[in-house]
């Protein structure tokens, strides 16, 4: 599992560092997947049942990471949406999605 998380992060960082704006946005999506799995892993995998109270079950999975991840999923969706629209806006305004060209100039220091 840890290896998969590392792999997800690696791919995400590689995409974020690339020159295309779209790839950067996709990279952030992968990054959030990696982060969610990381939280889940940190909680450990002990337990045999979903964290829902039932009479016969006593051995739950840790519910706390799940609650955190649930929040994170929703937020990351919001972030993705904002990023996408920002990319759209930047492209409309500047007519490029090349990150190298999207840098400040001396007037805007």
């Amino acid at each position, binding site marked *: *599992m*840890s290896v*998969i*998380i*590392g*792999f997800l*992060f*690696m*791919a*995400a*960082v*590689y995409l974020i*560092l*690339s*020159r295309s*704006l*779209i*790839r950067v946005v*996709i990279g952030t999506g*992968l990054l959030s997947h*990696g982060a*969610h799995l*990381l939280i*889940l*892993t*940190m909680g*450990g*995998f002990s337990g045999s049942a979903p*964290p*829902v*109270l*039932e009479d016969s079950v006593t051995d739950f*999975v840790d*519910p*706390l990471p*799940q*609650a955190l*991840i*649930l*929040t994170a*999923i*929703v*937020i990351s*969706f*919001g*972030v*993705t*949406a*904002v990023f*996408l*629209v*920002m*990319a759209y*806006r930047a*492209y409309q*305004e500047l007519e490029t999605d*090349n*990150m*190298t060209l999207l*840098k400040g100039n001396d007037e805007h220091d």
Partner: protein
Amino acid sequence: MISVLLLFAPVVAALFVPLLASRLRGIHTGWFVLAVPVLLFIYYLGFLPQVKDGGVHIGELSWIPSYGISLTSYIDGLSLLFSLLITGIGALVVLYSIFYLDKTKERLGNFYVYLLMFMTAMLGVVQSDNMIALYGFWELTSISSFLLIGYWYTRDGSRFGALKSMMITVFGGLMMLGGFVLLYIMGGTFSVRELASMAPELAEHSLFTWALVLLLLGAFTKSAQFPFYIWLPDAMEAPTPVSAYLHSATMVKAGLYLVARFTPIFAASEIWVWLVTSIGVLTLFWGSFFAVKQTDLKGILAFSTVSQLGLIMSLLGASAAAFHVEGAAETMFKYAGFAAIFHLVNHAAFKGSLFMVAGIVDHETGTRDIRKLGGLMALMPVTFTIALIGSLSMAGLPPFGGFLSKELFLTGMLSLGELDLFAPASWGTVLLIVAWIASVFTFIYSFYFVFRTFTGKHKPDLLPKSAHEAPAGMLISPAVLGLIVVAIFFVPNFIGDWIVKPAVAAVQPFMYGSPADVDVHVAAWHGHVTPELMMTIGIVITGLVLYWLLPKWQGGYRAFPEYLTLNKLYDSSMIFAESGMNRLSRSYMNGLIRSYLIYMFAGIVIIVLGSMFVKDAFAVSFEGTAPIGPAEIGLLTVLVGSVLTTLVARKRLTAILALGAAGYVVALLFVIFKAPDLALTQLVIETVSVALYLLAFYHLPKLSRHDEKRKFRVGNAIIAAGVGLMMALLAMSAASQKALPSISQFYKDTVYSEAGGGNIVNVILVDYRGFDTLFEIAVLSIAAIGILGMIKLRLTRKGDQHEKQ
């Protein structure tokens, strides 16, 4: 207590200055300001009887008690002397400035605010017993000096001079702070008095020499000692009242004060004696030698101030030497300490009056260039008289105060010559000879200053204004100082008993128990011909001859190449530092987000991996890992495959679909890891996301690599691999060890009894962490509003085109 609060009286008064300056334009603001130093001067005069008998006054106001930092007003002989100088000269300078600065043309509000700020700062420096408070006031003097030098900020020279003085004195101030901290480490207290009482133990400490050198750096930069003197000539861009006040009478003497104040602590060190005396004599010579080269009246006075400060510094060094000798020799050095303080008073009087004279000449003729001046004696008789008194006192001639302090100085140097404290035994003799030569040059520049300006041929066609005598008000202050100079000669022992001796007792507590023990009697004529008198006669004769021949050898100064001077060194290093730093920051702040991200990622990787390595936090255990079945293997394969696809995808649709696939796999993983809520949410979100991506991509350009070079991609890959490796190790270690038990058990136990819900995850979200969820909704709303705004906003560029059409 009241004396501490009075330290801040000038600053409090400064609060009202802008109001007075703007409301009462008819009356010169200076008249209101004048009350502050005058009242303080009278207040400090009241301490004289008490201090004369060796008493001290201590006022204390707690500031940061937990660190032992307090605001103190410690008034002993030394600080009283300085306080009287600050307020006394301050009052005269304010009076003078009323006539010097035009109330309609100048921004008087600013000027007097800065001046009052300086007054508080300087009083704070000399009265603070606590080193941290002392440091704070010390830097405040640098800042107010900076503001005052740059008062005419539209001039290039003013700004340059202000910055230069700031750089050098603040550098020294920081060094001094280092010295203070070392003293604190050694002695465990910030109080100078307490440190002085444990001086013998401090001298044994290994940090002692370091503290000494750092402290001296502070003193030398402030008092313009060689090689830091270069800021003082440039500080002459300040209005003349400021030069008279800060840059000759008070602020530059803060360094002398510091040396005097810390003499009881450091006198035990031979390095102290050696450094202070040698640098002092060197500065004395250097300043007087180059003063003759100057053509600007204030330039001459600036170098002369440098030189005189060196003189006092060397005397302070010699007075510390008294600690190292015993018996008969000790009595010889008692003159040194007395001479230092005595000359300090003398110098404040005659140099203050000379600066004011230079200001008057500038004011009435429009120039300070000594080559254009001449023959002003007939036009400005009063000014000439004052200048003559000041200059002859500076040259060390009777019947003026300077003669007496010159004699005492020579006595001090003579006794150094006989002392074999220094490693080369003849060093003391060398100092004596250098001091004598410097005195000759002092004599020359004093004559040069006064006779080139006031005698000779009047050149009215070279002057911007037709010269005439200054208004009476402007002459009051220099005349008062001139009178003091003469008075000191005739009643030196009166000044000595009341002001100098208490200060000497404070500087040399190891010699004197009380001011009354300082058994120095100053006399102009000792009843017989002393070596000092012989030397003075030598100085006068040599000086007169050289002054006579001055036109013949003054050109010799031009033989010194300009680029070898310290000034040039400072200038070029400043320019280099400025452009170099600019280049450096531009080289990494290049505006590319990628670069910044790389710095961040690399930083995170290095810090996390480094700390994991140092703390030995790697841990791998397979306890509690989920069993890996065929389903898991299949899912992970799909995940890896889809992620790889996003990496290499050439079409954007492929990339989007692969991203979606990865998201669904993660959802399935949630199912396997017994998180049904997560899986449901992830499925919904992922579906919406893919739809959103597709929608947005309709408007976005085709996927392009933008000619990413091989090097570029390899660099990215290295960073990415580093982050991946770090995260994998982090996840492994985090999963394998738990420092604290999870809080989850609490939720498990109470979820039904407290919150009445069965689904623990949901209950946590809406109940235990309800606010969190509320804010999450708020965040999403903000995002939605932002998105709406960005889409609806009219394009600026297209808008422009419409307007053009």
